[in-house]
């Protein structure tokens, strides 16, 4: 319990990850499904950003001549977050384009109904 209180950012991000994961897995509405994907990815970025920041230190940009490494935070996690955001943007764009085409064809966003209609089409 004590661990949860000291690592509350990480705990929150893992809970958010779970919410997003279950949404992506179980949600029937396709748009909400991919919102779940975004929650899941964002949770990971929160985790990285929280882990990457150490209280009282600053971004590693030399402004006042301090070269001691203890004064700065590690820039790599922030870089990873940026890379991850690019990845999740492209995946989201792709999935939304796909959802749009499915909607044009079937007229619904409900995955169950789409599966049913698709099976009927196949059976013809």
């Amino acid at each position, binding site marked *: 319990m004590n661990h949860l209180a000291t690592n509350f950012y990480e705990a929150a991000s*893992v809970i958010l*990850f779970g919410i*997003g*994961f279950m949404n*992506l*897995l179980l949600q029937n509405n*396709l748009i909400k*499904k991919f919102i779940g*994907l975004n929650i*899941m*990815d964002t949770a*990971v970025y929160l*985790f*990285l950003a929280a*882990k990457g920041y150490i209280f009282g230190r600053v971004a590693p940009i030399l402004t006042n001549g301090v070269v001691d490494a203890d004064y700065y935070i590690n820039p*790599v*996690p922030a870089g*990873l977050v940026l*890379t*991850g955001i690019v*990845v999740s943007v*492209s*995946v989201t764009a*792709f*999935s939304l384009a*796909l*959802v749009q*085409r*499915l909607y044009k*064809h*079937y007229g619904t966003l409900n*995955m169950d109904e*789409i*599966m049913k209609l*698709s099976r009927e*089409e*196949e059976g013809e």
Partner: protein
Amino acid sequence: MAHVNFVHNIPFFSIFLAMFCGIITPLVKNGRTARKIHGTMVFIIMILSAILLLNVSENRETFTFMMGHFPAPWGNELRAGPLEALMALTFSAVMFLTVMGGSEFIYKEVVPEKQNLYFIMLNALFGAMLALVYTNDIFTAYVFIEINTIASCALIMAKGTAQAMVGTTHYLVISLLGSGLFLLGVCILYSITGHLLMPQMKEAVVQLMATGDYHFPLLVVTGFMFIGIAIKSALFPFHSMLPGAYGAAVPTSSAILSGLVLKSYIILGIKLVYGVFSVDVMHQLKIVDVLFVFGLAGMVMGSLYAMRETRMKRMLAYSSVAQIGYIYMGIGLGTRIGMTAACFHILAHAITKTMLFVCCGQMVEDSGNKEQIFYLKGAGLRNPLAGIGFTAGALSMVGVPLTAGFISKLYFASASVYAPGKMAAVLVVLAISMILNALYFLPSTIAIWTPKKTEVQEKPAPISVSPAFGIAVVLFIVANITLGIWYRPFIHIIEMGISLLQ
């Protein structure tokens, strides 16, 4: 090292060339020109990978290639040894033959304006698979996993039918669940080890195991990463995305996805086993046993699903589930010889399944685009070449001697002897699975050689087979039999590669 060997640039150059071809392909509007660019690129990479393989296996060496300006603990690296070079060579050879044999499907089934886009995705996919084979940095691996996902989804939906879109959605959702888990695993692992490069990570993991710090997070991380990879590579019970996607896609896409893309994730997994977690840690955390059990379950369940299936392409998709089960079973043995068998099965399955999909696609097309096995009766007589290719592939899947499939099953069986406690399970399940394989492959093979009775015995209209398809099928069969007879050099290279990975 002051002197940079020319050969050491090959891994980077291969990935770069594939990605570069993906970038320049939009400039050509014509699918056939795009196909030529793609074919040339894959052929060049095949030659380069062969040179790399000869070089590293002769010197028994493994090397890292620094990407960018920062050296080891901070920068990004590629790493190549005999195993990586062999996999790159296999991937490029299989890719070349598949696109050669399957290009007619692309021209017929993809809208003409979008054919060049299809090849962009194929180039990106190939680049991403090579990157997964060569990378030494775990976050780079994640990024290329996502590129792989998007490109493979685009290849599935290229046909543009509603079925293809539904299949793509299913594939996309399951894949994203897998990559999400992998990403979270990478982030937690990074936060407890402080490194992203595999060798440094391994040192930290071994140290953590020795001191007992972060034992629980480490367990969770291995769980996340291997479940992620298992989902991506469609290990049973995460296989539900395969049949819909492969059944609806262009046969060329199905062939590449099942023969190569699934394998690229498994190779990443093998690199994680040796490069990050080390075999001892895998044993201590019992991950190998979990993979072993799911592998065994997949071997049986995949075949059972395949037996129920009446449509040919979906049957092949379920058969892939069973074959992925074999590979995980080999990894799950937790011994070096088990891993060798698994790696050999990756080669054997890559060349066999792609041939099956291409021949199956051709027979379905000859039979009026009906893929139920009932309609495929006599398809082998209508198009003997596709029929022979399918038969050879089916025999290899069942494990008839002189084919590649036989050797991998032989090696699985002999590997089980060295894994105490697992031998009985492996031998029993292997026997059951081979019988089940025979039970669904032989009826479909007999069906394609049985003439339709109701058909009036008129001479069927001659079916034009493109010479490229013929050459590809012949080369596939030759490759399969080569692996089945002269398997020793391949096994030798795999063994050397695995010992150098450690």
